[in-house]
């Protein structure tokens, strides 16, 4: 007689952190927990956590200017085998159209400008918007058990 537990959809998980880069790992740790026991490869999980890191770094740096009185807000949810991560800051926002292409020859050797590109590479979709509460909000989504995994470049 053996009875196993069933995993559950835990509903939206909301986290807010002060604007320190060290806190990025807290959100990653929590996201890892949310993905635990789900049908997602270690590989995919790795790239999701990297995208989360990039989004949070931008919110902390460009959004909140590392101002400790401003916070970054993360909402994570898994529904229909799709992970949705919303990252909101308390900053002025920006227009993603003005962001350069890091693959353009003149940008190739720049020391910055790759974060959004990595997010787009590793997630299925990245959307940018202004949050109702103010600040910039980016929404990252990723289908978890996609049969063909194409992220992370060829090897």
């Amino acid at each position, binding site marked *: 007689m053996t009875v196993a537990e069933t995993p559950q959809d835990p509903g939206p998980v909301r986290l807010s952190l002060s604007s320190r*880069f060290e806190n990025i790992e807290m959100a990653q740790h929590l996201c890892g927990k949310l993905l635990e026991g789900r049908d997602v490869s270690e590989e995919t999980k790795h790239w999701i956590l990297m995208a989360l890191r990039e989004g949070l770094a931008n919110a902390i740096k460009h959004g909140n200017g590392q101002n400790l009185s401003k916070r970054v807000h993360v909402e994570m949810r898994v529904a229909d085998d799709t992970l949705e991560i919303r990252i909101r800051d308390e900053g002025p926002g920006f227009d993603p159209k003005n962001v350069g292409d890091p*693959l353009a020859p003149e940008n190739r*050797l720049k020391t910055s400008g*790759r974060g959004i*590109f990595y997010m787009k590479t590793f997630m299925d979709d990245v959307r940018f918007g202004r949050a109702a509460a103010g600040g910039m909000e980016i929404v990252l989504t990723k289908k978890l058990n996609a049969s063909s995994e194409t992220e*992370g*470049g060829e090897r």
Partner: protein
Amino acid sequence: MKTNVREVRGVSILDLKGKITIGSGDVQLRETINKLVDSGKKNILINMQDVTTIDSSGIGELVGCYTSVTNKGGKLKLLHLPPKISDVLTVTQLITVFDVYESESEAISSFA
């Protein structure tokens, strides 16, 4: 991140360990490389074997180091690139910028 510098047959080998990420390791990498360049070192090999995580800031610093070493007439090469870091360099088309080696002795010889 932890860094350790070894000198082997005229090559400064920088063993990195841990994270090269924003606020933790990114600036440190740059400072270590600058010190080597300022002390006249021209042949620099970064051993990435024990780098566990890198992000766009870390990649940016790596590119910055490459540029500043090259501008001073030196050479910066990479050793033992973990697969996921290789992926991250590949998708931003940086993998061809760096000379990457799998063997330390081969890498050292390549500077000669």
